[in-house]
C-alpha cells in the first residue's frame, strides 16, 4: 500500500483539453472519490493513473516511485471496470487469478489467494462457474475479487456500481466501504453519482470540464461548497439559487429575498455592497410554517415520498438567474424546491407558508460563481 501523488497532469487530444493541471495528493489508505458530470475528465484521469492513457504532461508517483511512463502492469495497481471486463472464457477462479498468473506466481499461491479473496467476498461457491452464469451483483464481486487477490498498492474503480439495480447498488456501496475499512488499500473511485461520493469517500474531488472545483471531505463539501457548481452538484435535490443584490446595512450585508431584507451570514461585508449575488438555500433547510424568514407560496407540485415531501414552487421573476448560467436545466432555474421531513399530508392547491434560517444561506458571486464567506 502506498500514497499517490499526482502533479499537474494534463491531457489534451489535439486542440481539445480534457484535463487541466490536475494535482492531487492521496494519503496511504485513503478512499478518494472523483465525481463530476459526464465529460468532466474523471475517467480520463483514472485511465492516466492506470497507465491506459498517456498524460500530455505532469507526473504521477505511487509510493515513492515515479510511474508516469510505466506500463499499466508495472504500476502495481488493480482496476475494477464499469462493465467488470471479466474474461468470458475463464472460470471465476481463473479470472481472479489471471493477474497473478501473468506475473508468474506459482499455482499453489494463486489458489490460496483466490480462495482467501473469495471467502472475503462470499463467492467461494462460484469459483468454478463462468462469468456468464453469474448475476450482475456476483460479477461485480468477482471483479472486486480480481482486484483484491493482486494485493496491489492501490485500487482504481471506474463507476463499478453503475450497472447494478438501485437496491443492489446501495448494498454493494456499503460492502465496498466495509471492504476498504478492512483492507485499508488506497482507493480511487470514479463516479457521476454524488450519493456514492458522499457515502463512501474520505475525500471528494469534484470536477467540471477538466478542472478540479473543490477537494474536501463530504461534510465540508456539503457545508462549505467552493462555488455554485459544487453547491448545485452535491446534495439531492440540489441547492436552490436565488439571484439578488447585496445591500450594506449598518455593519452587515442584507439582500432582498421574497420581499424581506435578510441579513447574510458573511464576514467580509464591506466589499460586497451593491454587487449582484446568488444566494443558495438547501431544500432541506426550508421548513414548513413560520420561522425567522417566512414567505407564502402556492406550490406548483408536491411530490410525496412518505417520509418526506418535495414542494416545487415557482421562483419570483426577480430571483431567477439568467438562462444558461450554471449549466443546469431550465426547471431548476425557475423553481425552488423545499424538502420537508415528516410532513403532514396537504392538499396540492392550498397556499403554504415556508421559512428558513438566514444563517443557513450560502452566498456566491453572481459573475464568477465563487463562494463568498
Amino acid at each position, binding site marked *: 500500500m502506498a500514497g499517490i501523488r499526482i502533479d499537474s497532469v494534463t491531457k489534451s487530444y489535439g486542440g481539445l483539453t480534457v484535463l487541466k493541471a490536475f494535482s492531487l495528493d492521496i494519503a496511504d489508505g485513503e478512499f478518494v472519490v472523483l465525481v463530476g458530470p459526464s465529460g468532466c475528465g474523471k475517467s480520463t484521469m483514472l485511465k492516466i493513473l*492506470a*497507465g*491506459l492513457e498517456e498524460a500530455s504532461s505532469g507526473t504521477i508517483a505511487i509510493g515513492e516511485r515515479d510511474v508516469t511512463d510505466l*506500463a*499499466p*502492469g*508495472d504500476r502495481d*495497481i*488493480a*482496476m475494477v*471496470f*464499469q*462493465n467488470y*471486463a471479466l*474474461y*468470458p*472464457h*475463464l472460470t471465476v477462479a481463473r479470472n481472479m487469478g*489471471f*493477474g497473478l498468473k*501473468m*506475473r508468474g506466481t506459482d499455482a499453489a499461491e494463486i489458489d490460496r489467494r483466490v480462495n482467501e479473496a473469495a471467502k472475503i467476498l462470499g463467492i467461494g461457491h462460484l469459483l468454478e462457474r*463462468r462469468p456468464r452464469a453469474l448475476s450482475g451483483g456476483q460479477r461485480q464481486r468477482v471483479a472486486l475479487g*480480481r482486484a483484491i487477490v*493482486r494485493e496491489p498498492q492501490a485500487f*482504481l474503480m471506474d463507476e463499478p456500481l453503475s450497472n447494478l439495480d438501485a437496491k443492489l447498488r446501495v448494498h454493494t456501496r456499503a460492502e465496498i466501504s466495509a471492504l476498504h475499512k478492512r483492507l485499508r488499500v488506497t482507493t480511487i473511485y470514479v463516479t457521476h453519482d454524488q450519493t456514492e461520493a458522499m457515502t463512501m469517500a474520505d475525500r471528494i474531488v469534484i470536477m467540471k470540464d477538466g478542472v478540479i472545483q473543490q477537494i474536501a471531505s463530504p461534510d465540508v463539501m456539503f457545508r462549505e461548497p467552493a462555488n455554485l457548481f459544487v453547491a448545485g452538484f452535491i446534495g439531492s435535490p440540489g441547492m436552490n439559487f436565488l439571484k439578488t443584490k447585496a445591500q450594506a446595512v449598518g455593519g452587515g450585508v442584507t439582500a432582498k429575498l421574497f420581499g424581506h431584507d435578510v441579513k447574510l451570514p458573511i464576514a467580509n461585508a464591506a466589499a460586497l455592497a451593491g454587487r449582484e449575488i446568488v444566494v443558495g438555500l438547501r431544500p432541506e433547510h426550508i421548513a414548513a410554517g413560520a420561522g425567522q424568514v417566512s414567505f407564502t407560496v402556492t406550490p406548483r407540485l408536491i411530490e410525496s415520498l412518505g417520509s418526506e415531501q418535495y414542494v416545487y414552487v415557482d421562483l419570483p421573476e426577480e430571483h431567477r438567474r439568467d438562462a444558461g448560467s450554471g449549466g443546469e436545466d431550465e426547471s431548476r432555474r425557475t423553481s425552488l424546491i423545499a424538502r420537508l421531513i415528516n410532513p403532514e399530508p396537504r392538499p396540492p392547491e392550498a397556499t403554504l407558508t415556508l421559512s428558513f434560517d438566514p444563517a443557513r444561506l450560502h452566498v456566491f458571486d453572481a459573475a464568477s460563481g465563487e463562494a463568498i464567506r
Partner: protein
Amino acid sequence: MPRSAFLDLARPSRRHWLGYLLLAPAVLLIALIIVYPLFVSVDLSFQNVNIARLDQPRRPFTTANYERLFASEDFWNACWVTFKLVTIVSFFCFLLGLGTALLVNNRFKGQALARLLVALPWAIPEVIAVVIFAWLFDSSFGLMNWLFIKVGLVDQTINWFSSPDAAFAVVCTVMVWKGYPFVSIMMLAGLQSIPEDFYNAAKVDGARAWQRLIHITIPSLMPVIGVTLVLVMLWVFRDFSIIYVLTGGGPLKATQSLSIMTYEQAFGFFKMGYASAIGVITLIVCVIASRLMIARAPDNI
C-alpha cells in the same frame, strides 16, 4: 376493416405462417438444385451407369463402384492430396488471415486502404486470378523464376508445372492467396466484437502483448475461428477451378484432389456411377470433418 381470420397473418397464432411463406421459395430452390441431385447422385453411385440419363431404365443395384473405388490407388492418392491441401491451405490461410486482421485492426493512417488491399484477392474472380498466377509461375518467362534467381534461391529456372512437388506448392500458394482474405475479414469482424476493456483489464493485470494474444484474443475468437476453419476447409475440399485451370490435376496426379477426380471420371471417362461414388464419399468425409470441428470449438461467448 375486419379481415378474414384465416388470412390475417399478423395474428399471433398465425405469425409463424409468414415465416414459412417467406422461406418457401428458397427451400424449393435448394430442394431442386441441391437436394434432388444429391439423391440422384447417391442413387447413381449404386448403379453401373456410364452416361446418366433420366429417361433410362434403372440399372440393378450394385456396390461395384465402391468396391472398385476402395481398391483403386488413384482414389487413395486423391484422398491424400486433398488431405494435404486442406491441412496446408487451412493452416496458412488461418495464419495469414489472423495476422493481417490483427494488423488492420490497429488504428493507423491509411487503415481503410490497408483493409481494402487485404480483402482484394477475395474480389478477383478465381479463374482470372489463376491465369495470372499461371503466368507468374511460367517456367520460361514467369516473374517467380526471375525473382528466385535474382534473390539467389535457385541457380536455374524451375519448371513449376512439370515437377509434382513444385506444382503442388504452386496450387497451395494460389489457394492460400485466394482464401486468406475471407479468414481475414471474418477475424476482423471477430476482433472488433472483443470489448476494449478486456484488453485494458489484461494490461492492468500485467499481461504482455503476446500473453494478451494467447489469453484474450484467441479464446475470444474461438467461435469465429471454428466456423471460419470449417468454411475454408469445405472450400478447399470442393474447389475445382484453381486446380483445374492451373494444373488439370497433374503432373502425375500430384494435384488431383477428390473434386478433380470426380470431374475427370464423370466428364472425362463418362463413368458417372463411379464418379457419383467418389462424390458421396467426399460428402461423408466433409460432413464428419465439419461436425468434428464445430463440436471442438468451445461455446464460450
